[in-house]
């Protein structure tokens, strides 16, 4: 069996992980501007960093869905599991696709705010708020994906499971650690604000660690699939 397609999808992760991280850094999203800024300060932020914000946000716009191939490798691996049905795999696919559209929606709001920085500062702030909330708070989708994958692993009846059992625990744990992000739409300051230690730091830090660990987990599942296919041939 040829696994080149899945391997290519997997290796998009480190490439676009670096691209997206740099794009966010360039755009001034990391570290995030505080939600306590006044409308004028937000407008100044856009005006003073216009070139960087546009460059970063156009890059995110182009590359924001480049993790979808990785998620689809996970869907394929979930279909390899010994399950009576593909219910979790389909659920995972759907949640990943929804999450992608929401991520790009946040990018659009940032980009629109940067499109006409001389606009009424109140409107810039509104678009900036919308972008940050769409970016930080819809954690339910990645939480759902992790939960479906974990359930899939727990129920995998293969003698040699596709993913080891600890990966399921790891998915549940990371899902819980990302949950505080949802509260960013409620708080303008403190750890649960969109620049806070929990809603931003813990949430996105966990996501970064999650993707890095899952890269190796999926890589070893692919190696295993290749060995299995070789043995069967």
């Amino acid at each position, binding site marked *: 069996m040829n696994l080149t397609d899945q391997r290519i999808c997997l290796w998009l992760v480190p490439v676009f992980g670096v691209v997206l991280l740099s794009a966010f850094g360039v755009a001034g999203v990391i570290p995030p501007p505080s939600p306590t800024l006044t409308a004028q300060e937000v407008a100044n932020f856009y005006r003073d960093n216009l070139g960087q914000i546009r460059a970063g946000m156009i890059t995110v716009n182009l590359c924001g869905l480049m993790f979808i191939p990785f998620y689809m490798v996970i869907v394929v691996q979930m279909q390899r599991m010994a399950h009576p049905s*593909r219910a979790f*795999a389909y659920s995972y696919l759907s949640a990943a696709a*929804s999450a992608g559209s929401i991520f790009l929606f946040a990018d659009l709001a940032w980009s629109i705010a940067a499109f006409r920085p001389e606009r009424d500062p109140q409107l810039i702030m509104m678009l900036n708020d919308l972008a940050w909330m769409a970016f930080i708070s819809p954690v339910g989708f990645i939480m*759902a994906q992790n939960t479906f994958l974990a359930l899939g692993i727990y129920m995998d009846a293969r003698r040699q499971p596709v993913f080891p059992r600890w990966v399921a625990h790891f998915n549940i744990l990371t899902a819980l650690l990302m949950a505080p992000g949802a509260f960013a739409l409620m708080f303008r300051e403190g750890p649960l604000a969109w620049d806070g230690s929990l809603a931003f730091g813990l949430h996105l830090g966990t996501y970064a660690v999650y993707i890095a660990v899952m890269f190796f987990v999926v890589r070893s599942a692919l190696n295993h699939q290749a060995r299995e296919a070789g043995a069967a041939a």
Partner: protein
Amino acid sequence: MTQLRRNVKLDQLICWWSIPIFYQFFGLIFGYLTKIMGPPIPGPNLTLEGITAFTLGNARHMQIGIVLLAISLGFASMGTGVIVVQMRRMSGPGPVLAYCYLACGAAAALPGCLFCGLLFAVSVFRPDRDPQIIAVLYEMGFVGFIGCLGCFATQYLVFALAIFLDRRAIFPKWLGYMTLWNLVTELIAAPVWIFRSGPYAWNGLISFYLGVLIFVVWIVCLITWLKKAIKNQPLEEFDPACTGTLLV
């Protein structure tokens, strides 16, 4: 190997349970916490004062509701997942209609639900925001929510078609006709983009209340007959290599 009790339908049943649980959340979020689906729901002709009073007067509950939505909405895809599994069992339609159902479900999350939540979250985030901006967010939120037609119309259409074409009668034919009625609710909601008062406004008797009534009847039937479809799925259908789920 010791004899273990297995339930080969456990994954589907978990997904099935998510549907009634999600709609409990949905009712709690939109009916009680955010008051977006009231009743009574505020209409397009509200004054600026009325809009700020509705939006900001209920700010804390609204925020709690939208936090819950941001966490729970992702799990709604489990319902899609199990329906797709049952649609793929059908004989007659190939997998194409099942995949259509899956794609529409994935597409609907943002325009059909979260968009509205995010807009209201933005409008209550800063109580000192210009009332004109709050009014725009209010209108975008409501008319976008009630007036989001296409994802669901397509989903209902392919679901009804699949039921009609299915020779195995996984779902009863009348559920197909009911699904077409659900499609009609999207048609009668279309005028919310034009009317600002009366039965075809976004809070109107026909466009909103009749639509919600038909939807509620439909979703109850779907939940009930989906459970029956899973229950009636013969055990021979399960691949012996996929030994099923260990319960113990």
